[in-house]
Each structure stands twice: as structure tokens, then as C-alpha cells.
């Protein structure tokens, strides 16, 4: 288990993409490495891949904001709570070192989780109201104890705005759609973010 790695369990769609981008940027800004299921296309069975990532990360972020009914069939999206449950199972398996894993649960509204998955009470549960800046603040505040030099989320937000501008213009120029999650591979987006942060961040984390 690596204290630099953060596993992310979240929806993969264009509506959630702005939130995911701000979360990824914050994790990289805090000098951590995000692990996300779609970054590794090795052909490995999806659940096996997820468990391997969960086992390798000391930190996990589970976003349950899209658990409600969705799509034309009005069916619930079960992947996020299922993966959250698998990770909690690992955490409470009394197996060393997984009992040290730390979780951040993100939801769209404060206290909504009490109506859908109240068993997770007692963990760090934050509401982002579907606002990228609030998702950023939640992740930054949660990671703060791991690195005392992490700047205020205001500073990270300013840098993120600049990155979005430059990254959006660059991707459009070379033929990618910056707002389409399926356009540029997430692994490449993470690589670009990391490179930009290393060259522009003033603080040593």
C-alpha cells in the first residue's frame, strides 16, 4: 500500500467530467498519484483491476452523488456503491495494512447519504453540490494532514482555472474535444496536469 496513491471511484460521463478534472488536479497538486479504473487498459478483468488499485492505494475517494435513478430506464447506478463496499470490505477485513486505509466520501448534498447509505457514517463525508470548486476544497482539506505545505484551495483553484484555459485551447488546436471524456484518454490528461503543475506550482509540497 502506497501513501502517495489515491484511488478514485466515480462516474465516468461528460456531466461529471468537470468534477473529475478538479479532483484529479487537486490530487496531483498535493503531490499524490491518482488511480482510476479507466487509466489502465491492460485487458484485466475490471473487478480484479479495481481491487488491485484499492489494495495499492492508502487513500480512496468514493463519489456516491450519482447513485439515484438515471437514464431512460430510470435504473440506479450501482457501480459506485458496489466498489465503495468492496473497498470498505478491504478496510474492515482486519488485514494488515488495509485497516489504515483512509476514505473520503463525496456526495451532491449534505446528509443525503443518510437516506441511501447510512452505514458509512463516521467517515469523512463531504458535499460538493456538483461544483468543481467544492469538490476541490473537499479533497484538498482531506489531504491536508498528509502534507502541511498544501496551499489554500483558493490558490489551487486559481491555478486550475489557468490550466483549464491553456489546456482547453491546446487540445482544441490539436484536434481533441476538451469537454468530451472519451476524446483524450484520462491517462494523458493526468500526464498533462502533472507536467503543468510541476512547471507552475510555486509551493514545495
Amino acid at each position, binding site marked *: 500500500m502506497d501513501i502517495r496513491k489515491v484511488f478514485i471511484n466515480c462516474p465516468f460521463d461528460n456531466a461529471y467530467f*468537470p468534477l473529475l*478534472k*478538479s479532483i484529479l488536479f487537486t490530487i496531483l497538486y498535493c503531490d499524490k498519484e491518482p488511480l482510476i479504473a479507466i487509466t489502465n487498459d491492460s485487458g484485466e478483468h475490471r473487478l480484479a483491476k479495481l481491487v488491485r488499485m484499492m489494495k495499492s492505494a492508502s487513500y480512496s475517494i468514493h463519489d456516491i452523488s450519482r447513485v439515484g435513478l438515471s437514464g431512460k430506464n430510470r435504473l440506479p447506478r450501482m457501480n459506485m456503491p458496489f466498489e465503495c463496499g468492496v473497498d470498505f470490505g478491504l478496510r474492515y477485513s482486519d488485514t494488515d495494512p488495509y485497516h489504515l486505509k483512509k476514505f473520503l466520501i463525496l456526495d451532491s448534498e449534505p446528509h443525503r447519504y443518510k437516506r441511501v447509505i447510512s452505514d458509512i457514517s463516521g467517515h469523512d463525508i463531504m458535499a460538493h453540490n456538483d*461544483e*468543481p*470548486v467544492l469538490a476541490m476544497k473537499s479533497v484538498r482539506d482531506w489531504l491536508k494532514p498528509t502534507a502541511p505545505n498544501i496551499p489554500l484551495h*483558493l*490558490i489551487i*483553484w*486559481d491555478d*486550475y*482555472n*489557468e*490550466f*483549464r*484555459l*491553456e*489546456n*482547453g*485551447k*491546446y487540445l482544441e*488546436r*490539436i*484536434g*481533441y474535444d*476538451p*469537454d468530451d471524456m472519451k476524446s483524450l*484518454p484520462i491517462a*494523458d490528461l493526468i*500526464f*498533462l496536469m502533472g*507536467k*503543468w503543475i510541476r*512547471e507552475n506550482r*510555486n509551493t514545495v509540497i
Partner: protein
Amino acid sequence: LQIQRGFCITFVPSLLRFMSTKILPTGKELADGFMEFVRTTRDPDQVHIITFDGRWRVLRQGRRRATASLETKEAAIAVAKELPNVSKIIVHGRDGSLDKEIRVRV
């Protein structure tokens, strides 16, 4: 003849599609291109208008501290226009993306 026709119907369009596909850069090539793009296009005379905590901040390119923090976007744009040596005002959306770009006559 039918086999040849079938081959042309299925194979030729796929081949043309494949030939017209643009090969986009990925990985290191993409990142190097991005940093080069940032170095060559970043304008020190541009000002960002960024929304934060219900207010609109006016931030000069490369500065850590906002010049002003105002209640409305329009007020922030007006303040930015009055600043010396401003060539461009970048207004960001709530998700950080580019909302609009205003060119200012110096």
C-alpha cells in the same frame, strides 16, 4: 464476382475511414507539445476573472494575489478594463473553463 463486390463494399469504406483518421499525439509527445504551447502563447498582459465563493476575483496573469474581489462579473470586468497594460480579459466559467475572452485596446 459477388465475392469481389462484397469485398469492395465492406473493405473499401473501412480502408478509407482508416486512412482519413487523424493520428493525434499522446503521452510524452502530447505533454511536450502542451508545455511548448503554454510557453509561446501565455500572455503576461492578460487578466483572469475567476469566480470563487460567490464573488468575482480579478487576477493578473502570474500573480498569486487578486487585484480586486467584486460581487458581480460585470463589475470585475469593468475593474479589469481600467488596469494598466491589459491586452486581454479572460472570463472563466464556474467549472474553470473559458467563458469569454475580451480584447482590450491598449
